[in-house]
């Protein structure tokens, strides 16, 4: 069964208010084509989930699409620096920052993928994050009585992952660093894949390298060449600094809309 569809149609399956997992890490293989389309469709109330996010979170905050962000770290890293739109949106109270340690996002996704309500974690013994957030709570080891902290499961309604290769059934291969994308696909109710290249139905059957994400977890496949740009896609292209700077220099939503339209 082919799940291939145009980008706009795939993004229309994400409702306002969805708990949305995003693949990649900072400026590495962020699903930017999908994110730009979500901004063009003027989604509202999205609740984003990512270990370490950057441009995709910043752009969706700029476009007014976001209600909350569950993440350990939000920045473009050193060279391109802070996510100013995210930062302002949190400071204005428009977006709620649910700060995690990156590991507690991973643990919350693991809990969801294991079908259990929470995951105990070490660390966090002396952190104001525990008292400040209702997704952390102390938990007692029933066998030894030791106190750990529990993190509540995060089961995204949907996640969007950009891959180098996919077939039309939804089998997808990530080349180079996979970050937390494989886990994200297991933890989410469904996965949308955008891919640099669509391969034939026999490709993975005949290849010694198998897909990371199996078709039965995937509900849409979108052909999206340069679909991570202006972030990098390992083995294919690096960061497009010029385009990224152009985005960072946008000052208002009219300019953002024009920038998004030019890339449609």
């Amino acid at each position: 069964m082919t799940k291939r569809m145009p980008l706009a149609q795939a993004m229309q399956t994400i409702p306002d208010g969805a708990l949305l997992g995003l693949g990649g890490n900072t400026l590495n293989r962020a699903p930017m084509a999908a994110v730009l389309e979500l901004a063009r469709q003027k989604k509202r109330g999205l609740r984003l989930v990512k270990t370490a996010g950057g441009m995709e979170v910043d752009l969706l905050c700029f476009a007014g699409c976001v209600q909350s962000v569950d993440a350990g770290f939000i920045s473009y890293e050193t060279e391109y620096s802070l996510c100013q739109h995210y930062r302002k949106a949190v400071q204005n109270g428009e977006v709620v920052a649910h700060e995690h340690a990156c590991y507690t996002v991973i643990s919350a996704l693991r809990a969801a993928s294991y079908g259990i309500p929470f995951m105990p974690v070490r660390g966090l013994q002396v952190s104001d994050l525990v008292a400040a957030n209702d997704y952390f709570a102390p938990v007692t080891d029933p066998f030894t009585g030791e106190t750990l902290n529990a993190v509540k499961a995060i089961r995204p309604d949907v996640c969007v992952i950009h891959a180098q290769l996919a077939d039309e059934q939804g089998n997808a291969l990530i080349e180079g660093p996979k970050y937390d994308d494989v886990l994200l696909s297991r933890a989410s109710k469904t996965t949308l894949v955008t891919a640099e290249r669509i391969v034939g139905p026999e490709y993975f059957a005949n290849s010694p390298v198998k897909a990371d994400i199996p078709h039965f977890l995937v509900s849409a496949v979108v052909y999206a060449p340069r679909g991570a740009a202006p972030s990098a896609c390992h083995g294919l292209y690096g960061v497009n600094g010029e385009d990224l700077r152009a985005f960072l220099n946008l000052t208002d939503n009219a300019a953002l809309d024009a920038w998004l339209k030019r890339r449609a």
Partner: protein
Amino acid sequence: MLRPCDMMAVCMARLIHDGDTVFHGVSSHLPMVAVLLAKATHAPNAVHLNIPGGVDPHRPRLQTFTSAGGELTDTAEAIFPLQEVFDLSMRGGLDVAFLSGVQFDNRGGVNASVIGDYRKPKVRLPGGAGSAVLIPTAKRAILWRTKHDKRTFAETLDFVTARGHVTDIVTPLCAFTLYKGELIVKSVHPTSTIDEVAENTGFPIRYLTLATTPPPTEAELRALNDIDPGDTRNLEFR
């Protein structure tokens, strides 16, 4: 002219012992270069761990936009990604984690979360990344910060992202170490003075002996240029 980035990279590298398992994350060019330098000099058996999961990458071609990209996996010997590095730390197997923050107190507390109130912050910071779980579980958490001023080294923190096993903090002016739970000056870099450190630290500074950080050796500087010809270690100072 001794550049602060070179002094800091060398100072951080010297804190790595041969055989240590060592992790650095995103926005971490200085510690990434420090790990590579340690492996190229006194600690060839240190194990380089990172977010994309490249174990001991061989002469990676460092990129400016990230310290967590595919350059660290392309020439690696094995794949051991972030999730597993955290697991390693949780079970007591991570020797060193390099982390940073925006505020530090004199007990080794770290704030990387907010200035002001958590819910309605005056400044929303990027967040502590792995700090809240790594600082308490890694055997040694080594911090670096390229700013050294009274706002960074503060009497009290707006928010405690993490506390735990901080052992050292390296800045452009000096190296601090934790001694009996208190941050003390271990050595002042040759480009600074103890008075300058005191003037730029928001709590009274103390030390056991007044030492100068040994400047980078010729061999260390040669290795630095070899590892990092694009000078990514200087990114935070540009």
